[in-house]
């Protein structure tokens, strides 16, 4: 019972704040804060699904670091809503709405076909040890490729940053 209530509360929080990100284009600080609320709600959903490690990493990396960087940039630029340019094109809005509709219909069709009951999880599931074990055995290749990708991104950021200074 409490689990269901919590699920609905945080799912709605996630959805509403995700909508808030899009609706607050003119007020970027509010948009960033909506993004934080969305990330935190997702983290709660992860933890409720016993994926505790992923939930905590979600808070630490997305809410605690990435969106702080967004805020940092927004504050440095200090944009006023006048600076944001003219109204966005109606065509883009139409395409966006259509895309949302298509994805929602597809999602509903996909999820309604899944089974209702799930096997019991073992007590180790979602712990740091279990996630680490899976990452370093079954998904080692994907994990290492992701590492190389991140390193490439890091090097690229340094190169671009250096050009600015020179």
């Amino acid at each position, binding site marked *: 019972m409490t689990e269901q209530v919590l699920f609905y509360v945080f799912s709605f929080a996630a959805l509403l704040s995700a909508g808030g990100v899009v609706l607050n284009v003119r007020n970027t600080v509010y948009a960033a804060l909506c993004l934080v609320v969305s990330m935190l709600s997702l983290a709660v959903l992860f933890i409720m699904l016993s994926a505790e490690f992923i939930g905590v990493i979600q*808070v630490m990396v997305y809410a605690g670091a990435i969106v702080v960087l967004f805020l940092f940039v927004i504050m440095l630029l200090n944009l006023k809503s006048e600076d944001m340019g003219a109204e966005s094109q109606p065509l883009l809005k139409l395409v966006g709405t259509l895309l949302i509709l298509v994805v929602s219909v597809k999602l509903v069709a996909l999820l309604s076909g899944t089974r209702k009951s799930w096997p019991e999880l073992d007590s180790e599931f979602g712990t740091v040890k279990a996630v680490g074990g899976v990452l370093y055995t079954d998904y080692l290749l994907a994990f290492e490729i992701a590492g190389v990708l991140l390193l490439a991104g890091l090097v690229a950021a340094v190169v671009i940053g250096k050009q600015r200074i020179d």
Partner: protein
Amino acid sequence: MEVGAYVPVALFLFAMVMLVFAPLMTWVERKQSALMQDRIGANRADIFGIRAIGLLHPVADVIKMITKEDTFPTGGNRLLHTLAPIIATIPAVISFAVIPYGGSYEAWGARWDLVVADLDYGVLYIFAVGSLATYGSVLAGWASNNNWGMLGGVRVAAQMISYEVAMGVSVVGVFMIYGTLRLTDMGFAQQETFRLLGFIEHLGWAGPGSWWVDLIKIPMWGIILQPLAFWIFLTALMAENKRAPFDVPEGESEIIAGYFIEYSGMKFGLFYMGEWIEIVVISGLMTAMFLGGWSIPYLPDHVLVDALAYALGPDMANVLAMVVHVVVFFLKVIFMIFFQQLVRWSVPRFRYDQVMNLGWKILLPLSIANIVVTGFVILVVQGMMS
């Protein structure tokens, strides 16, 4: 997620930390700075002439802050201006939940766990919650419609992001040694000892009957096994705490008070409360991870309980051991608080570029080197053991 079988004691201790330690920090701050600067220090507040070595100053502070006018800057954002101090304080309060005050005790058929939330990812929880505190300061700077506030907010964001990296990487060595992120497990692991001269036996330099090899035993405390991690972690945590010598976001001489320049009354007080609670959290975390937690060196929990049980019986022995451990834990915490204040009143403020250089160019490479060296040593020791 497991919660201890019997948590009221832990909850009581949690409340005590928040209601006793944190407010007393104002007194500690004034009194210790006075001692270090050869002044007599806080002793003006009195009730009917009773001054109680300045202990009444926290009371005077609270009365002043609650009754002071709550000012609001023109052109500011009222919603975020009000929310910011709350967002800055709550993470500090809730992060103490995973720090253990003692081990696990059994008395009168119940199990007493002295931790509010014994989480599998305990240390990560503190990192995650702590990283949210940044929003409080950043939003305070932004919502104040003040250029100094804004500068302070930008500086907070940059500093917190920079030191979170070194903070997270520096303790990986500790995780590797104890094989856990759970703070209670770390506490139990630190009660073990290792033989300093054990390698002589493993290399075959001493025969099986050499009793002297067992003579020197050293507790497996984090500060002994991971001294570099201890200093890097403490530095990074103090930078996250934004107090001198890392107080560039507040920098009175350049940006007046930084992000909380437009705050008064209890909202202003909340920022300070947050910082003081953070000091206690840092001390608790350092104690749990590096200073052996609640344990007395060379005296593991079960040995202490067994020794007391001879005289008192098993139930009273458990309760007495619990009291002893809580006292030991808080003594260590008080020492760490004292040490942080010592640094705060000894070292002048870093320049902004110095703060960034220290974080990215010194602490981060050192902590990565620490992981490599730790991994190598663990391999060698495991090779010897097998």
